[in-house]
């Protein structure tokens, strides 16, 4: 997952992540990408479109 620099660390993505994989710090955001099933719900709810699926 690509976290854009305008992310505001509000945590909405963490709250809807069905696998509890997103850790929001004060000014950073950590994904546990190994366990991510790419359901994309976090991308969908972001109020400022700060998450983007990595192309690989």
């Amino acid at each position, binding site marked *: 997952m690509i976290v854009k620099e305008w992310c505001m660390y509000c*945590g909405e993505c963490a*709250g809807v992540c069905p696998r509890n994989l997103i850790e929001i710090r004060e000014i950073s955001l950590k994904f546990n990408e190994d366990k991510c099933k790419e359901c994309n719900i976090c991308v969908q*709810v972001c109020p400022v479109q700060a998450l983007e699926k990595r192309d690989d």
Partner: protein
Amino acid sequence: MMETDVLVIGAGPAGSTAAKHAAMGGAQVIVIDKKSEIGTPKRCAEGVSKDGLKELGIELSPRWIAKEATGVRMVSPNGTAVNLTEDKVKLPEAGYILERKVFDKFMAMDAGRAGAQIMVKTLATGMRMEDDQVVVTVESMGQKMEIKAKIVIAADGPESRVGRWAGLKTALKPKDMESCAQFEMAGVEMAEPDCIEFHFGTVAPGGYAWIFPKGDDIANVGLGVLTTITDKTAYEHLLEFVASNPATKNAQPVELNVGGDPVGGLLKKKVADNVLVTGDAASMVNPLTGGGIISGMLGGRIAGQVAAQAVADGDYSHKNLKVYDKLCEDELGESFKKYLKAKEYLLSLSDEELDDIADVFKDSDFETINTSEMVRKLIKISPKALLKLGKLF
């Protein structure tokens, strides 16, 4: 390893209230918050009812009250306004617009004065059970530590990670999470500067837009949307609303806030062995208005009291803590069910229907009309109100 009776994770209003009441009940309490400054940035429109603060026994301070709001103004998509102003109706929900950055700190200070130890810039990173207690791993300014607690109160907001570590289903579906964006603005020209203002319809699909006055020409201007029914982000909807609304088109932002608001109704199971979930993490938010400061604090108070009692009992099992679910249901859950119904109805209305309803009510003298008369009027113009709201009245 640090040890304590009660560890509260998150020092928002719910967490601080829980900490305060746990400490007042005789428990040893530690509160951690991941941020360097409690209450910042706000993720909230900052409105509370006067009755709510009174019920909580909070002493009012001019340092965190930005403005008193005495009325409500509701605006339909075509701009028709229904004004419930003080001269027209006595509102039970009259309230204050807070300065959350100050308010949240004051609530945490109250917890500290009651005896709680507060650790800022301290993030919970994991949790495990050990000898009938909970060990929470935390990081504080680069230091990794462990805190062993008899009871953990999870007040970690809409992220709600801690409850899930305990096996509770605190994750939300996108349809139960309003995606919100808000500017604090100056130069706002409100038609009724003493009213909190709501705008309904496609301006905010699945939610509503608000303008909450903070005194002078300052206001919180925001909206919440359901991302399941719109392709635009909350922020994009906000920009459109601000540009098109007469009150805000000349206003300037000084702050942007975003975040999720859990509006699906009270989380049913908020208790596990050694763990209580409270505040936004337990969806202690009025599903109709999205307001959750007072309800979160009411829930937090119950959590603190139940935790202190369990410490006194020496029993932190689910069985001994589960009274918390029942007490929260009585305090919040019952009314939330009604608000959910009302929300369903509101969200079922098209822009045209909203305009028609506003047109019928715009000149009503609310002092002389009683609730049943209002409902009769509503059903006449919007027959499905009977079906959707009938049981509530």
